[in-house]
């Protein structure tokens, strides 16, 4: 069979880059290592009848243009957007709720802190304004810093125009905010620790860096870019579970002519004289193509290449890409709805439930990564997708998805085979403090460790974002300076996963940017 392009990896970015390339007239074969496409969007069965998101549980950052261009609605993607964005129960029985409605949120915050409530609308506006500028950066191909072309100059002018569009005051604030620690960015506006903890949390989700890390404010703003999340971020679900979005992406790709092969494990990216020749599968089967687009992470991608072709300096640089996985996943099958402190019914529980009671709490949870231990007092982001989609659990029962921070991939003095259950125990024990009686509702439990993420999902270092978000791995430095324009190290090799600009999350940004760059024919 003739083909123009081989895409490695059937996660969301792999499916998206494949679909766009096929739309652009290329013959594309996509190779997925496991038996099912979807990557971190795959559904996972916790127990018969209980469908949980494998890893990612919300999909609200997906680019509108991707949904439109690939006609995802026609292929079965149906987003569910609850009114609530973030619910943060506290151990004293109270709770803070952030709604999509900014005024409603500010009004409710009054009960907690009058001054913070008064500042909330302005902060939300600021986050939206700064994020709108980041959306322009995220949509751009990082410039060629070494030999800028006319196109780079135009892109620069466009970014400059977007920047000037912010106005002098907001523009100055953007430059100040991007390198800040999110603890300062949020802490200088709000005094209440419960409000601070809730708002900083998404800046460090999936990340090894804590809220005092430089540049974490830019992660918060990147998370807001391109959706209407505002200060508390998005809480959008896919009907049928995250796996349904993966299926819609696969259906869209196939309808555009992409050949998808599962159980096709790429063992080698073959190259001669620095030019890609094709791939060899673990089965020994050889597929030829002069273009290989990898949606796998950068370390894994380069690990598939011939080290002689890469050379010692590139191997050293690739080895230094920071991919310290720090997140574990706990999925729970529940016999009923847990009673969270301050929930007053179901509505507040329909978005992201965040257990992050202050800056110190979140920072301490991230300290654990530095010392190779599991956080004993983790911060958690949980969702109960069955509350908005009853097809996910048997009637009256629920499925709960819990992201656990921090659980480092590299443990000192122990290993993940030994510690797996402890993560589940700590998660349930922690939730119990905010939802008394939750433990008794647990019918089944599934723990996905960072080691599982590495082995089952192919994420080097167990890092869900492929490469740690950080100023040194942002834009022209993602994943490596000189190799940030999707064309990646070897001629004919491209990177289109979360390790490429604009980074991780269910955005489709790397996949669609990479496809645009490839189809433009520019390097």
């Amino acid at each position, binding site marked *: 069979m003739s083909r123009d392009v081989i895409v490695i990896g059937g996660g969301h970015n792999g499916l998206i880059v494949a679909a766009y390339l096929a739309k652009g007239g290329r013959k594309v074969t996509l190779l997925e290592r496991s038996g099912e496409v979807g990557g971190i969007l795959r559904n996972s069965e916790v127990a018969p009848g209980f469908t949980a998101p494998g890893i990612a549980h919300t999909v609200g950052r997906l680019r509108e243009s991707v949904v439109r261009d690939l006609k995802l609605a026609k292929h079965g993607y149906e987003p569910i957007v609850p009114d609530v964005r973030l619910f943060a129960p506290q151990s004293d029985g109270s709770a803070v709720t952030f709604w999509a409605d900014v005024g409603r949120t500010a009004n409710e915050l009054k009960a907690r802190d009058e001054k913070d409530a008064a500042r909330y609308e302005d902060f939300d506006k600021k986050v939206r304004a700064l994020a709108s500028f980041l959306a322009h950066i995220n949509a751009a191909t990082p410039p060629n810093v070494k030999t800028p072309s006319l196109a780079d100059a135009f892109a620069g002018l466009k970014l400059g125009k977007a920047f000037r569009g912010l106005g002098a005051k907001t523009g*100055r*604030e953007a*430059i*100040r*905010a*991007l*390198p*800040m*620690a999110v603890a*300062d960015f949020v802490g200088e506006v709000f005094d209440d620790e419960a409000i601070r903890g809730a708002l900083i949390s998404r800046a460090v989700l999936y990340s090894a860096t804590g809220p*005092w890390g*430089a*540049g974490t404010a830019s992660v918060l703003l990147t998370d807001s870019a391109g959706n209407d999340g505002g200060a508390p971020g998005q809480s959008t679900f896919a009907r049928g579970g995250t796996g349904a979005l993966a299926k819609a992406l696969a259906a869209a790709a196939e309808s555009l002519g992409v050949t998808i092969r599962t159980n096709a494990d790429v063992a080698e990216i073959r190259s001669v004289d620095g030019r890609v020749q094709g791939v060899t599968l673990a089965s020994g089967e050889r597929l030829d193509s002069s273009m290989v687009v990898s949606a796998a992470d950068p370390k894994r991608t380069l690990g598939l290449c011939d080290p002689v072709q890469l050379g010692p300096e590139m191997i050293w640089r690739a080895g230094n890409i920071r991919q310290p996985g720090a997140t574990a996943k706990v999925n729970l099958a529940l016999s009923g709805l847990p009673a969270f402190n301050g929930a007053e019914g179901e509505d507040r529980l329909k978005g992201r439930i965040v257990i992050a009671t202050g800056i*110190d709490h979140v*920072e*301490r949870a991230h*300290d654990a990564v*530095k*010392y190779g231990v599991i956080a004993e007092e983790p911060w958690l982001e949980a969702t109960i997708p069955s509350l908005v989609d009853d097809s996910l659990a048997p009637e009256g029962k629920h499925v709960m998805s819990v992201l656990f921070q921090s659980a480092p991939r590299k443990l000192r003095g122990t290993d993940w085979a030994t510690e797996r259950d402890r993560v589940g125990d700590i998660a349930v024990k922690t939730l119990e403090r905010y939802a008394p009686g939750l433990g008794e509702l647990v019918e089944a439990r599934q723990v996905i460790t960072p080691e599982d993420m590495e082995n089952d999902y192919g994420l080097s270092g167990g890092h869900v974002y492929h490469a740690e978000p950080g*100023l040194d791995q942002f834009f022209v430095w993602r994943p490596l300076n000189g190799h940030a324009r999707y064309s990646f190290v070897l001629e004919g090799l491209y990177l289109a996963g979360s390790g490429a600009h604009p980074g991780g999350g269910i955005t489709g940004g790397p996949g669609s940017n990479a496809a645009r760059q490839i189809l433009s024919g520019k390097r």
Partner: protein
Amino acid sequence: MNLALDGLPELACKPGVGEWLRGAISFSPSLDYMERAYDDAKYGKFSSKPYIDCIMPTLVDPTMAPPGKHIMSCFVQYAPYKLDHDREWNDAEREAFGENVIDTLEERFPDIRSKILHKMFVTPKDIEDWTGLTEGNIFQGELSLEQLFFNRPVPGWARYRTPVKDLWMCGSATHPGGGIMGAPGRISALEYIKAHRRGRRKVA
């Protein structure tokens, strides 16, 4: 912390007197050690195991102490300005942190305690009281990215001018920041001269 010493202390790892004692002596045995010292400060405590950078200036300038005696000057990290995020140091805590420092020094200089004649321990609050440096920050503002260059000290007022007419700034709070280099003073003077030489009365 400053110490007046009755003779030179001896390093356990390299006994004797030699060139190695004449520069900076750094007790920063590992990244973990330094990070843990910082962790304490993040949560409003002083470091239980501080990291120390010390010099003995009397080795290069004997006039700083009576014959045979020595001075040891230690930079010690970390000591937050406020303890527990919101309260001032008390004398017992100053003593306790001083003891942590001497304990840490003793691990490297086993005979240090027997040499100490006088000790002076200075907290960030003391630095503020003695020198007027707000929060005892000797750089007049943390040297973090959001407070550098055109953001130093604050966005919009990085050109040595202030919102008050004819009030200028020239200290470490201004670009390029803290340290004994004199650059903020020099650049601010040049900027002031430039603004006035052109006869521009308005210098906003």
